[in-house]
């Protein structure tokens, strides 16, 4: 599936390994949160990067204590209308100080891309056949924001200002 990063289709170095399948040791992989809970000791001493995938109902607090083990957290959107993931990402960043990659997976539409970036997501797994132009456009079509967010930490005293888009 195409990976969207910085408004463009990018190379995906990561692969998701479904539960039950062997986990390669030589490349970055994403495992489910459920597998992590069941098999965490098996990942002791692993050198290649590890990522974890949270279902939409799994909130940031569930993974908070283990965040230093993961270079990537994938947050699932079961339906694009289910906006819990926006809070999950923001909690990961603001409350738990996570600095790794946060990826949106599942059902996400380009019209949400700016919101994703502003709540702390760094990449999005888009559906096959998606229109890359719509993703690029989503970051530039609205250039004004009225509240502080993850992409710009200016305090609220500046209630209104231009977005920095790059």
């Amino acid at each position: 599936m195409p990976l969207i990063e910085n408004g463009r289709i990018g190379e995906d170095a990561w692969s998701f390994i479904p539960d039950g399948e062997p986990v390669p040791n030589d490349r970055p992989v994403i495992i489910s949160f459920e597998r992590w809970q069941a098999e965490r000791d098996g990942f002791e001493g692993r050198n290649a990067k590890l990522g974890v995938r949270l279902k939409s109902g799994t909130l940031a607090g569930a993974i908070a204590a283990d965040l230093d083990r993961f270079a990537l957290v994938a947050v699932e959107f079961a339906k694009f209308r289910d906006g819990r993931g926006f809070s999950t990402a923001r909690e990961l960043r603001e409350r738990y100080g996570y600095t790794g990659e946060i990826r949106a997976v599942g059902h996400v539409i380009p019209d949400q891309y700016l919101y994703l970036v502003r709540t702390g997501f760094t990449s999005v797994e888009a559906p096959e056949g998606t229109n890359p132009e719509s993703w690029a456009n989503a970051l530039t079509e609205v250039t004004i924001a009225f509240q502080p967010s993850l992409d710009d930490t200016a305090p609220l005293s500046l209630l209104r200002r231009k977005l920095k888009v790059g």
Partner: protein
Amino acid sequence: MNHIAPGARAGIYHYDEIDRQFVAERVEQFRRQVERRLSGELTEEEFKPVRLMNGLYLQLHAYMLRIAVPYGVMSATQLRKLAAIGRKYDRGYGHFTTRQNLQYNWIKLEDTPAILHELAEVDMHALQTSGNCVRNVTTDPFVGAAKDEVVDGRVYAEILRQWTTMHPEFTYLPRKFKIAISGAESDRAAVRIHDVGLLARRNDKGEAGFSFYVGGGLGRSPFVGKLVREWVAQEDFVAYLEAILRVYNQYGRRDNIYKARIKILVHELGLEKFTQEVEEEFARLRGPKYRLDPEIVEGVRQHFAPPPFEELPDHSEALERAKAADPAFANWLEVNVAEHKAPGYAIATISLKPAGGIPGDATCDQMDLVADLAERHSFGELRVTHVQNLVLAHVKKDELYDLWKRLDEAGLGSANAGLIGDIIACPGLDYCALANARAIPLAQAISARFADPIRQRTIGELGIKISGCINACGHHHVGAIGILGVDKKGTEYYQITVGGDPTLTTAIGDILGPAVTETEAVDAIEAIVDVYLANRTGEGERFVDTLKRVGHAPFKERIYAAD
């Protein structure tokens, strides 16, 4: 774009270039979203929330476009534009809503980008008037004028308007989210039936702060908002709301649309646990990033500086003469005019509830007239109330008679604010795809039955509120008399409740008995009124107080005796 400047004195938030650019970008964004829907890139399911977030709703017969009137305050210039749009793209009228907005009920999808473009010319839009986001924040329609005002709610409502606009975290909430602010001693904003209700007050140092009520709401499961925090200082105003919304966004139910409002979360978690979750988030959010800077507050406040009131004696000879000469005017004065904080001025409510009329509807000619009158008598601004009337907030007492004569000629002179004819009704089955029964014809029939202004005044304060279905857009739960439309095997029936109260002493009404037909409903309302008049102690006792004293029995007996 041709920008049409509002009157400089109007107490509205005056857009700057950045605000204008934002609205223009959103208009262009929506135009492209419509194209992507038409090309199939967006599915109907994906397009729906996008269209709702732009105020476009699909009703029974046509699209409805709901225009945002932030906290119900607008300029005469803006109202004139709304009239022009109604004439050009709708059927020559518009409908003022309980959210202090205006909606057009007969819009064509292909016209919407052009309408949004025209609205942008007067700094208006339809953003966030629908969808699962934070909706238009409402406040006291007498704001900035009322004698009992402690804090100017417009200032904080405007701060919230900005803070909630395209909020990246809270645009896909479990369900819609409604906030109301009241800054006066009397609550004219029904704060405790909102997802978040704010009472703005001052401490003994004169500093502004807020009491937070959370989890109020009507619909299928009505709840009165619960006090979550007695005092939130001004600097924490935004942080506290951010904490509430973050708890709601994470824990609010998404499995059942009827259980998705924050009231259900508060109810299921319990007030104590909910409060604890919010306080934890708040403790962490508190800090420079979310601190509301006093300079921002002052900057916003400047937009709402008092208009240049003249120094006048409070007593008006002209008014007294007109009152003595014209009893119909005297009656309107008594019922529709409220005290103003500036001597010699008054607050005039323009009733959109003529006998037999459709609550909240105004023709485009009436809108133009009100715009003219707002310019002549009220510094070019007006307000929409949550009971679907209009208000001119700063009228010289000397000019009230002239104002009323002009209103009366145009069918806008009804003297029934707060009385039995001042009915709230949702659009009902005449427009709405969710409704089980019509609400408008019943409202028309009741107001026709009680057309006599003297009879209305004799009955006194008595709000009737009608909803065409359990979603309760007509606020029937808090009507002194509430009416809920239900469908019984294809026939419209109406269930009557009594004892509701939308003010600070908020109460949900109780069902009086079995549902009745439309014709029976009008007779039943009259029977309730007769029983009230027969039982009340003196002129002063309000309907709700008589009801409390005598109970349901005498009312039930009269209505259902024949069965």
